[in-house]
């Protein structure tokens, strides 16, 4: 009797085909519309909070407690010009070093302990 023309499958050998099917455009998981619909208002809410926080930010402390008077060349709401940060940081570090207290108090002793 002639055997049917089926491929011989070794049960011990793992299947080679279709083990890891390559993803195609068709079978890529689509973004769930619900997730998008939920995340958009959350992002918008966070952004609005950030804007509110920035707008309500307190001005930096001034020596006399008053707002700076605007100059001709400076619009009222523009930030104050900042000195060059790199130099400023270096100078602050030097200033901190200068103000270090290195002096060590002398021990308090009696030079002549006797009868």
């Amino acid at each position, binding site marked *: 009797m002639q055997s049917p023309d089926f491929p011989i499958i070794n049960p011990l050998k793992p299947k080679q085909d279709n083990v890891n099917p390559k993803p195609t455009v068709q079978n890529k998981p689509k973004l769930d519309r619900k997730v998008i619909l939920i995340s958009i208002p959350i992002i918008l809410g966070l952004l609005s909070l950030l804007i509110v926080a920035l707008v309500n930010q307190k001005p930096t402390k001034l020596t006399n407690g008053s707002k700076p008077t605007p100059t001709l060349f400076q619009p009222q709401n523009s930030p104050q010009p900042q000195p060059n940060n790199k130099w400023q940081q270096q100078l602050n570090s030097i200033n901190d070093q*200068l103000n270090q207290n290195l002096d060590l108090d002398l021990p308090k002793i009696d*030079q002549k302990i006797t009868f």
Partner: protein
Amino acid sequence: MVFILIFLIGLNFFSTNSHAQVSNEYFNDVSYQQDLYNQSYDLYLGKKQIHSQYNSITTEKELLDTIKTALTNREILLSSYLLHLRASMDTYKPISPDLTGQVQQQLLNHNLWLTNQSKQIDKIQNKIQLDDYNQTFFQRYIQIQTSMATSRIQNQINHQQSVVNQIKDLILQLKAEHRLDQQAQNWISQIDTNLQTCQLYLAEAYKETQTKQNTRKFNDFYPDAIDQISKSKQILTKIILDLQSLLKKFS
């Protein structure tokens, strides 16, 4: 390359931290030894009072025992303070390695002397031996005080000289990266003059440390030297304020 750079920065950070940590440990030890000395000294004062009242052999022996304990604790306290001074000088030693090294060596010598001297305390049996010990200590203590004051002053000179050097570097960088107008050049020239004045004050402070010592009494130069250092610090503070104004000009 980046790894090496990070490694070097890290190494520098940990080295600076370890200096501070060691110095802090010595400071704690000095405080602890000061407490121990104070306790033994109070005990000595108490026994001295009792002995002056009763004047017996027993009270004399008890007094001698408390004197020996107080002397031992005093020498240990001084040793720990000298060690603290020596360690604290390491931070700014690169500014003046030779001079700083010499002062550190003097501190070490005094430390060794105190350690040896402490071993003699147990042998004291009577007032004559105690007076001899006190006399030897008194003569050496003039030298110890001189070294302690020199160390405190030299450390502060090194510290301020380090600030002067950093300000000079900053000015050099400013000159290299900015085209300075006449006004800025004038300011920098004024800062240079002030830096020179600082260095003169620091040199004066160093001169004070060379004051000749009397064999009978410690000639305390510390107040005059610290006065020069304070003057230098005032000028440095002003220079930093001037530099801040100058930086605003470039912003």
